[in-house]
Each structure stands twice: as structure tokens, then as C-alpha cells.
């Protein structure tokens, strides 16, 4: 009995050592949650890092606030250093709270910095277990990351949340394609493909963010951009467009627009006579007829087939042009290299893909199918 009491007392004493909290304890009010990280840089190798920190009391709905001045829903802190992590550490000196990146939703990187190579930046984020791998990467177009982050949009929502909410909408998989950090990292180290990410810019006049177009990379260097239309064609080629809307100027000057457009491609690699690879891209597109300016005609199967055929003739050279443009950037974001790796391992192992890709011969076949016609015959 005595020994049990002794063990019980010792147990209670030992338990009391745990009640003071653990080494990683950090109260919520002592955390500065970063929603978006912005990274700029100069040619001397300095990194200018900006962090957007939401102010929860400014984000309450009208009526729920207890007064106080209105204004931005977030605060910004900045620090410059010669590496991303050094700058992140430096941010700690700018606030009384602990800067916490576990809730970061997006990372905005300056396009000029991206042209110098971003392996070190991406690797730093992937190595850091506190950084969410789902954070979406953006590259700036014509602005600095700091400008993007400090901008207050007309739609009163935290900018960091605005980006992520847009990325969650399947209909946005059209003008741009949102790439999370893990996927960018995967493409970066995968020898048979190149990475790409969404472009972001500002519409100062209307106080809005514009996420449209793609930043395309050759290895870890940004080498070019696709505009909104080109991004759509790339989406059709790469199977990324899930519910897009495309406009087609038909040869007879009529305009055909389709909605809920989905596109996907099958790429077959064959060996040409000289042993070099030849790529045949078969793109299949489906969509719902949304608008045809040639009004008054009944949508008979023959007429629909004519529309489809005309649209195929218009789209085919555009898809070819996008591929040629990407070859010009030496950026294989469609995944030709991956198809060569899968279909002809022997050839892939003998090939220095980056040398071959810019001039590799290819052909594109487009098959368009209008699957629905709306409420009019």
C-alpha cells in the first residue's frame, strides 16, 4: 500500500513538469501569420522579401467591428538580405510577434529575379517543413512583388485569400493555370519537363488584380511569357483546360464561342528515317455552343459539322504557333520530353533533350466536337 502511494506521488510530481508547456508553445496573439510572401531581387544578389500579415480585426463584417479606423486589412513587413531565408529571419526583427509561415497561401516572385534562376528560392521553401507545399506560386508581370502585395483591391478581401479562392475555381483554369509550390518543384527537377506558373499584374485603374497568362521556364530560368489567348491554347494542348470559354473567328467572318471547353492531347512519338524523334499531337476538344454570330440558321448535324470543321482549321495553326513559341523559349511545358522518355527509353537516354527540343519536328491534328447547343435549335 505504501509503495503504491509512493509511486502515485512520484507520478504526480513528474506530471507537474509537463504542465508548464512544451518548447514549441506559442500563443496565437504572439504569432504574425503570413498570408503571402513577395520576393524581389536585384542583380547584385540581394533579396527583398515582403510579408503580408492579415489584421483579423479589420476583416470582420460591417457591424461586427467595435470602431477604430478603417483601412487595409493587412500590414506589410519587409527585409532585405542576400538569401530568402536570411530575409525571412530578418523579418523577425520587424515585429514583436513571431513571424509564422505555416499558413502562407501564396508566394509572389518578381519576374526579373526569376530570369536569373530560382532553384535556390524554391528549394528553400520546399526544404522548410513549415512552408505549406500547397502555397501557390505567382510571377509578376510589369510590377514588383512588393507593389503586388501592398496593393488594396476594390473587392474588400485579403489579397492572399483572393489568389487562393480564384485558384479553387475550376472555371479559372482557362486564362491561367495555378501551380502549387510542390508541383513547381516537381517540374523543376524532372528532366523531361519544364515548369510554368501563373502571371499576376495590377489593373490600377479599376483597383484589381489580374491573374492571366503564364510565366514559362527553361530549367529554373524564366525565359518567356504566354498571353491570355496563348495560355488557353496551351491549356488545350496540355489537358489543363477543364471548363474554359474560347472564341473562334471563323473563315466566313462569323464568330463562334464555346463554353465548358475541355481539351486534351495524345502525343505519339515516332522515329523518322534519320533516327530522330517526330511528335504527332492529336488534340481533342469538346465544348458547348454558346454563341454563333451567323444567326437564324438551324443547328442541323451538317451545319454543326461544318462549324466544327471550320473551327478545327482555325485552331490548328494557333496550337502550332504556341508550340513553336515554346520551342523558341526552349521551354518544354507541354511535356514532349516526357512522352519521348516514356515511349522511347533508348532514344531518351541517348538524347540531350534541351539541345534537341527547340528544333524537334512535330505535327498537330485537332478534333473539335460541339457536344451541346444550349436552348436554341
Amino acid at each position: 500500500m505504501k509503495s503504491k502511494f509512493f509511486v502515485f506521488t512520484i507520478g504526480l510530481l513528474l506530471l507537474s513538469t509537463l504542465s508548464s508547456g512544451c518548447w514549441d508553445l506559442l500563443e496565437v496573439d504572439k504569432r504574425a501569420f503570413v498570408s503571402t510572401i513577395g520576393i524581389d531581387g536585384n542583380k547584385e544578389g540581394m533579396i527583398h522579401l515582403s510579408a503580408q500579415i492579415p489584421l483579423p480585426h479589420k476583416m470582420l463584417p460591417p457591424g461586427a467591428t467595435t470602431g477604430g479606423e478603417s483601412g487595409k486589412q493587412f500590414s506589410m513587413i519587409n527585409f532585405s538580405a542576400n538569401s530568402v531565408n536570411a530575409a525571412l529571419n530578418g523579418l523577425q526583427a520587424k515585429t514583436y510577434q513571431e513571424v509564422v509561415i505555416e499558413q502562407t497561401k501564396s508566394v509572389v516572385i518578381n519576374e526579373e529575379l526569376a530570369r536569373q534562376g530560382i532553384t535556390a528560392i524554391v528549394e528553400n521553401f520546399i526544404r522548410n517543413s513549415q512552408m505549406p507545399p500547397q502555397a501557390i506560386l505567382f510571377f509578376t508581370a510589369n510590377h514588383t512583388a512588393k507593389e503586388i502585395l501592398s496593393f488594396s483591391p476594390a473587392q474588400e478581401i485579403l489579397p492572399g485569400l483572393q489568389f487562393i479562392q480564384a485558384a479553387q475555381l475550376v472555371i479559372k483554369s482557362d486564362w491561367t493555370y495555378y501551380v502549387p509550390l510542390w508541383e513547381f518543384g516537381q517540374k523543376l527537377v524532372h528532366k523531361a519537363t519544364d515548369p510554368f506558373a501563373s502571371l499576376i499584374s495590377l489593373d490600377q485603374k479599376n483597383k484589381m488584380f489580374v491573374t492571366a497568362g503564364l510565366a514559362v521556364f527553361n530549367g529554373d530560368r524564366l525565359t518567356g511569357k504566354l498571353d491570355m489567348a496563348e495560355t488557353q491554347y496551351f491549356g488545350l494542348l496540355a489537358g489543363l483546360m477543364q471548363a474554359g470559354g474560347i472564341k473562334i473567328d471563323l473563315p466566313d467572318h462569323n464568330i463562334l464561342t464555346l463554353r465548358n471547353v475541355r481539351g486534351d492531347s495524345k502525343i505519339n512519338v515516332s522515329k523518322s528515317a534519320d533516327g530522330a524523334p517526330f511528335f504527332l499531337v492529336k488534340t481533342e476538344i469538346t465544348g458547348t455552343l454558346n454563341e454563333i454570330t451567323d444567326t437564324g440558321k438551324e443547328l442541323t448535324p451538317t451545319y454543326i459539322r461544318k462549324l466544327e470543321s471550320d473551327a478545327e482549321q482555325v485552331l490548328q495553326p494557333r496550337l502550332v504557333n504556341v508550340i513553336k513559341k515554346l520551342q523558341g523559349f526552349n521551354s518544354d511545358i507541354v511535356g514532349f520530353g516526357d512522352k519521348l522518355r516514356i515511349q522511347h527509353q533508348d532514344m531518351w537516354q541517348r538524347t540531350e533533350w534541351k539541345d534537341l527540343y527547340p528544333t524537334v519536328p512535330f505535327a498537330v491534328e485537332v478534333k473539335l466536337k460541339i457536344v451541346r447547343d444550349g436552348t436554341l435549335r
Partner: protein
Amino acid sequence: MNKEALSPPTTPVNVFALLVVALLGLDFLDLPYDASSFCGPSGYWTIVISFGLMVLPLVLLAVLLQRRFPKENIISASKSALGKPLSMVGNLIFLGSYLTWITLAIRDSTTVLINCFLNRTPAWALVVLLLLGIGYIIINGLKPVLRLAAFICIPMLFFRFLMQIFALQGLKPDLLLPVFSASPVSYLKGGLATANAFFPLTTVFLIYPLNTKPQKLPIPVLWAATISLLSFFLGIVGAIGVFGAELTQRFNWSEFIAVQHIYITFLVFEQVGLLFLVIWTSLFFVAAAFLFSVVAKGLRQQFPFLNYRWTCLGLLLLVGTAVLLFPDDFISRTVFTEYRRWLVLPVTVYPLLVYIVSVIRGKRALPNEK
């Protein structure tokens, strides 16, 4: 301590629960590393090859040993087959392999927890907490371990598979192709390298006499191994299919990172990785307790003068000290990655040796041996 607590009668269902918890709890979340480094995009075949190379012969060997020594585990069977001096050396190497494995496993699990969540917590604090918990479970014999394993088995399996299926989010089939991307020699090497995933299955040589239905021994063992195979296969496919063979090789715990990358809109848990780690740690806890318990029991069998509880305490202190002897994670990881492949050898070759010698020498269970 009564005999039943130390050597509780174990139904086939209990055997299944113990083995499946041990197999999945001692999975170090980096099987895709070995799989992809040997075989590239089609590294998922390595674990199937491991199953064929290790599990099936192992089950056959367990059945053969059980028929020859129905009431004796490998510790007492080896005494009959090899004689006392040789069997003592063999048994110590056999049990020592488990101890080494536990030491490396505890160090690795501590490293995962510190790296991914408890950044500022010192390693010794986690090791002490882990060992105290294990000590509490095993101090009353194998029976509490058995009950705990049976209790957590189904819910943990459910959540583990659920998360592994969710981890397939964003999977690109192209990254898993071509279906055969390596030479047969590479597949064989990969299969041997990943065979250590089935290391805990070798504990069957220590527990089969407890089985209440000896004739049904292969069923729970094969079920446990098959379910683990599915989980390992899913883990490898998830990691390579999402991150590609190249990036998978750069992660320390790629299966965990694959779970961490899950993104589900409006999900309460923004980081599913934390939940996965809680589940994995629970499995690990019970799995490690099981290994400690069978090693302590095995040592007591070898040296009858030992007291089970004091043996457990000694083992906990020994392992705790050994875990903290590693100066840094780089050394522990290098040692772990390299040596766990070789640790499979003593625990598989020794039972085979015992069986072969017993056949050659015509030895069977001693009539007076319990």
C-alpha cells in the same frame, strides 16, 4: 508476473493485429526513396518483388518451424537444433537485431517529429516521453500490447489508407511510366533494398507458439503482410506519381510529404500531414512496444534468471542512451538507411539456419521443453 500476462494465448486475429500494427508502425515513410533510386518511375514494383522474395519464403519457414517445434519459438528451438553455446550466440544476434532496429527507428521517428512539427523541442525530451510511454505499456507483459494492437488496428488502418488515397491527389500517370523502366538486375536490387519494410514480420518466429490455432498460422501472417504490401505500394505510387522519381529521391520522408501536400477546400485541417503523423506515431508506439516486449521475453527465455520487468527497464535505458548517442540527424539517417537493409539478414537467415540444422540433425521439440 503471471505466465499468461507474459505469454498470453493469441488468436489468429490478435496475431494479425500485432503484425499489421508492427509492419505499418515501423514503416519509415521513405520506402519510395529506395524504390525510385533503384528503379526510377516504376519503382513501385520493388515492394511487390520484396513480397515475393521475403514474405512468402518467411511464411513457409515459419510453418515448417512450427511443425517441427510446435510449442517452441525460435529461441528454444535453436537450443534443440544448435546446442546451448551456439544457440546463445545466435539468439543474442537475433534479438540484438531487433534492439538495433528499435534504436534506429526511435531516432528516426524523433527526427521526423522534430523536423516537421516540434522544431524547438530537444530530442531527449521526445525520446524520454516515447520510452516512458512504451515502458508503461510493456511493463505488465505482452498482454497489454496485444490488447492495444487489437484496439487501434482497424481505426488506424482506415485512416492511414484514407490519407494515402487522398495523397494521390495531383497524381500524374506519366510520372509512373514506363511500366518497366529498369533492368531486371535493378528490380532485384530494389526488391532486396525495400525488403526491410517487412522486417517486423520476422517477429512471427518469436510469437507463433502463442497462437491458439497453430494450423491457421499462415492466414493472419499473410493477411498482415498483404495489407501492408497494399499500403506500401500505395505510398510508393503516391510519392512517385505526385513528385516524380527525381524529387522523391530528394525527400527524407516522401510518403509523409505526399500526405502533407493534400489540399482539400474547406477542410478543417489545413495540414493533413499533422493528422497522418499522429496516426503513424500511435502505430509506431505500439509497434515499438511490441518489439521491446518480445525482445525482453526472448532474453528472459535465453537467460531464465532475468526478471522480465527489470529486463524491460534495462532495455529501455540501453536504447534511450544509444538513441541519444547519435550526434546529429545526418549520421543517424546514413546509419539507418545503410544498416536496416543488412539487419534483415540475421532475422531471416538465423531461423533458416536453425531449421536446416534441425533437419540435418533430425532434431525436434524436446519432450520436456515447454
